[in-house]
């Protein structure tokens, strides 16, 4: 068996284990009965035992050395389960930590891997922070808008301006920052504004600056887009499955409603759109570690997958009839996650605005 074949088998097995684990250990309603972070208190240690937080850490630093294929499989299963587990923010931190070799970076990789550190992260384009030098380290000033920040997060990943140059930081959250939490309809994720006013940070919290930071920020943005695209694909697959199953069992006028052409064609359209989103997401996942167009393809996958998930989740409510509109039925849980996924990082229109310039430059370069 080739190395690639072995790796594909590992990823396939990981997905099977994750699906079974999440079905047994996590209840969809848990974040709605308490909070997302409360629901993670029992989930995170078990996920850490399965090695999920070590997946992207290099083998020589105690991790499993996996590329995006493994993470993508997990993001998809977490999306399918509507899981509140903040894996994406932790993995974005790991990707930045891999490039730093300080004792702090090693300790953080261990701590994240063990499920001890809970990491929040700035959204791409989510606010601006300045770093300035101080006698015994650095001082942060500025504001993050709608950061992904689990209640009880111990660390925060952000980018900041350091004397005119970009920098990537992973700081300890120890009370020096002002946090204003947002109440949001999708309870599976937690968002907050974070205000820094003369907040001290150690020098080792700066993981990268200059050119390296520019590359890390672009990589993180692509990782974020692709993680959300995978989440959307998983959620859309699940709610479509459940909707089709409902039409096979629900009877009206003496037959299953799934035999009516109006509903069959609607489901066929959903399936067709889902397959297109899956294909683009798979293409983006295979490009992320190799292509210089990775960021553009990942953004495209995010747009398509999020719009598809939202459309399928909305259709699912309709196809369930009256029961689909109730609190007791799970349709709205999918719709809420779909709507938040579509909004995170910017609306599809924001994304298209940002994509235009690099695409125009690529076309110009091809012509020249």
């Amino acid at each position, binding site marked *: 068996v080739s190395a690639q074949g072995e790796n594909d088998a590992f990823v396939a097995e990981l997905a099977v284990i994750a699906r079974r684990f999440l079905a047994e250990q996590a209840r969809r309603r848990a974040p709605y009965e308490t909070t997302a972070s409360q629901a993670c208190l029992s989930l995170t240690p078990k996920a850490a035992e399965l090695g999920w937080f070590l997946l992207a850490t290099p083998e020589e630093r105690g991790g499993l050395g996996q590329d995006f294929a493994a993470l993508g499989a997990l993001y998809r299963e977490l999306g399918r389960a509507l899981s509140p587990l903040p894996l994406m923010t932790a993995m974005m931190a790991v990707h930045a930590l891999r490039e730093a070799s300080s004792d702090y970076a090693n300790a953080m990789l261990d701590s994240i891997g063990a499920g001890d550190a809970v990491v929040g992260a700035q959204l791409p384009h989510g606010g601006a922070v300045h770093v300035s030098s101080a006698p015994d380290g650095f001082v942060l000033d500025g504001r993050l808008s709608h950061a992904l920040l689990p209640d009880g997060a111990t660390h925060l990943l952000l980018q900041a301006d350091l004397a005119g140059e970009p920098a990537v930081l992973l700081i300890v959250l120890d009370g020096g920052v002002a946090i204003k939490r947002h109440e949001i309809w999708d309870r599976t994720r937690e968002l907050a504004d974070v205000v820094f006013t003369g907040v001290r940070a150690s020098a080792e919290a700066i993981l990268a600056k200059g050119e390296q930071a520019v590359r890390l920020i672009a990589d993180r943005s692509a990782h974020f887009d692709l993680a959300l695209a995978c989440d959307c694909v998983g959620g859309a697959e699940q709610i479509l499955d459940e909707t089709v199953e409902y039409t*096979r069992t629900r009877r009206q006028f003496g037959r299953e409603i*799934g*035999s*009516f*052409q109006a509903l*069959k064609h609607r489901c*066929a359209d959903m399936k067709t759109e889902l397959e297109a989103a899956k294909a683009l997401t798979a293409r983006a996942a295979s490009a992320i570690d190799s292509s210089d167009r990775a960021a553009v393809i990942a953004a495209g996958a995010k747009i398509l997958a999020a719009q598809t998930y939202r459309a399928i989740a909305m259709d699912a409510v309709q196809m369930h009839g009256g029961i689909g509109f109730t609190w007791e039925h799970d349709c709205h849980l999918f719709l809420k996650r779909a709507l938040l996924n579509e909004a995170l990082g910017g609306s599809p229109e924001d994304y298209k605005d940002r994509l235009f310039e690099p695409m125009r430059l690529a076309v110009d370069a091809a012509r020249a």
Partner: protein
Amino acid sequence: MTLGGGHETGNWMVDFLNSYMWTIAGGTNEIQRTIISERVLKMPREKLS
């Protein structure tokens, strides 16, 4: 460059007009949807009346 399984001529006006034909030929879009729903999604067949 032509796309679409070699059915395109490269003349976009001709291809545009032909695109309507491809919603019918080889099984209409509606028949394709029925096939997806029954064969892929395993939804029940329509009751014969």
